[in-house]
């Protein structure tokens, strides 16, 4: 063994490609973040640091539009993520703690369906569905569509967590005369908390970020942040759009980091 001239696990160039990969992933985001602090109204020239475009987002001529879009986005994300997380938790309990039954695989397939159907197809189908049943498009249609595609994103971390919990805990509780409901609410749910929080956060971000489905099912004049940004970008990339993008990007990164820290801290203990 000592005669090995090189480490077999190391391939030359792989480290370089990994670093290149990270550069490609981060460069566009960092460039937009930097340019959002540009004092110039032109997006090409650099004229020094300034917060004027952030001020413009909150007080400028388009601020009312952005504020209502932001409110819509956050309200929808909050409700959709809450409902989706609840549904996902109940489903995971049935699929992982409900014994073997015929519809088990079918149920799992149904839950992962939104991940398999191309987003544009879901968007078209949902639009046609609301049209066929005569449901007026507006905030409610966006919310309903979001709940559906958030379920698998909430389900994945929740079921991963539940698989890591031995069922002996609940059985012990029930041996000590806890009812099934008590075993669920007092034993399983608290143990599940990190998974549920992760699931909620992911569902929240996915809802906050969705453009394609929202764009199809939203009513005229109803905007969320992504549809407002898309509408603005069609006229050209403006500095205030970069400021909004930077803020939205910050929210996503903070929330994902939070979710990661929760799951990591949990794994250590």
């Amino acid at each position, binding site marked *: 063994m000592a005669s090995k001239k090189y480490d077999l696990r190391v391939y030359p160039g792989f480290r370089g490609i990994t670093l290149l990969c990270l550069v490609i992933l981060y460069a566009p985001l960092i460039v937009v973040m930097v340019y959002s602090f540009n004092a110039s109204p032109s997006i090409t020239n650099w004229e020094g640091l300034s917060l004027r475009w952030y001020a413009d987002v909150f007080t400028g001529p388009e601020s009312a539009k952005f504020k209502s879009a932001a409110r819509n986005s956050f309200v929808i994300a909050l409700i959709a993520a809450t409902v989706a997380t609840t549904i996902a938790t109940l489903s995971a309990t049935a699929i992982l703690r409900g014994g073997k039954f015929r519809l088990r695989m079918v149920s799992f397939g149904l839950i992962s369906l939104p991940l398999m159907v191309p987003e544009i197809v879901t968007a078209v189908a949902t639009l046609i569905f609301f049209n066929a049943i005569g449901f007026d498009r507006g905030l409610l249609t966006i919310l309903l569509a979001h709940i559906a595609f958030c379920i698998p994103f909430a389900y994945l971390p929740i079921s991963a967590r539940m698989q890591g919990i031995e069922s002996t805990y609940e059985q012990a509780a029930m041996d000590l005369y806890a009812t099934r409901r008590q075993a669920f609410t007092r034993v399983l749910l608290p143990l599940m908390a990190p998974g549920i929080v992760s699931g909620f956060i*992911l569902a929240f971000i996915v809802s906050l970020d969705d453009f394609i489905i929202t764009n199809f099912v939203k009513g005229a004049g109803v905007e969320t942040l992504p549809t407002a940004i898309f509408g603005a970008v069609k006229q050209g990339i403006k500095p205030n759009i970069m400021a909004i993008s930077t803020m939205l990007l910050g929210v996503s990164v903070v929330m994902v980091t939070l979710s990661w820290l929760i799951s990591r801290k949990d794994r250590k203990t």
Partner: protein
Amino acid sequence: MAGGAATGGSSTSDTYAEARTWLLLPAWVTLGILVLAPVAIMLVYSFLTKEFRGGVIWEFSLGAYDQFFCSRGLFGDEPCSIEWTYIQIFWRSIWQAGAATLLSLVIGFPTAYFIATRPPRQRTLWVFLVTIPYWVNLLIRTVSMKFLLRDEGPLNDFLTGIGLLNEPLAIVNTNFAVQLGLFYSYLPFMVLPIYAAVERYNFALSEAASDLYAPRWTVLRRILLPSVKPGIVAGCILVFVPSLGSFLAPDLLGGARNFMIGSLIEEQFKGNAGNWPFGAAASMILLTMVLIILLIFARQQAKAES
């Protein structure tokens, strides 16, 4: 365990077996009404007659599929000959998605391998670094890419600034820009399954091959690659499938000449075309293609496991 990770596995029990119907009911109702029923109605709509400026007339018609596959001359009265316009758009989408998948594989495999061979404590951090951009809004990522690549953008400024180029490189509105955008959209889907496969790989196999005088690149090709193939296939599918129906990357980075399926469908509902049955038919054809790919993949996975 690979299948178990998705559906259950070791710690399943029947503690809540009696309540399972009630526990699953919300998911069944929500997804049944909001996903299954809409797809079924979309299928019906694809066989209806179009109404101008959107909507449908409830009258059976094969018009949408006829428009897709058949060319009937200027006045629409000639016998059916193959209509290439839409088949070409689908073909271009397949080609673009394939190129993006290849690009993701070329960059994603070494990255996944590098991460999987880090000390265990560092791995989660590396995985985290690669996945963060995925959680940033797809629209913002695509717009950022456009901002970086455009003719007067920072990348061209930099390249002309250091004297590497005399004139800015026109990347935006080319096929390559779309491929780069798709690559940027779905790269983590390539890295994660390959990473998981390499992490499970037993390096004693490489040792053995090397002891028998295999050069390291032969070890990679003959021993490592076949062992982690399921991860590579999964990664390719996870990048290819969403790329196929993507809308934002071709719309923002591609321009009019690089039209893909997603834009074709969008135009029927949001744009000027306003032909709902045709949009529904194109969506059904896309969905069928995707389901066939996933079915073949699931078959192979099942075969590999047994």
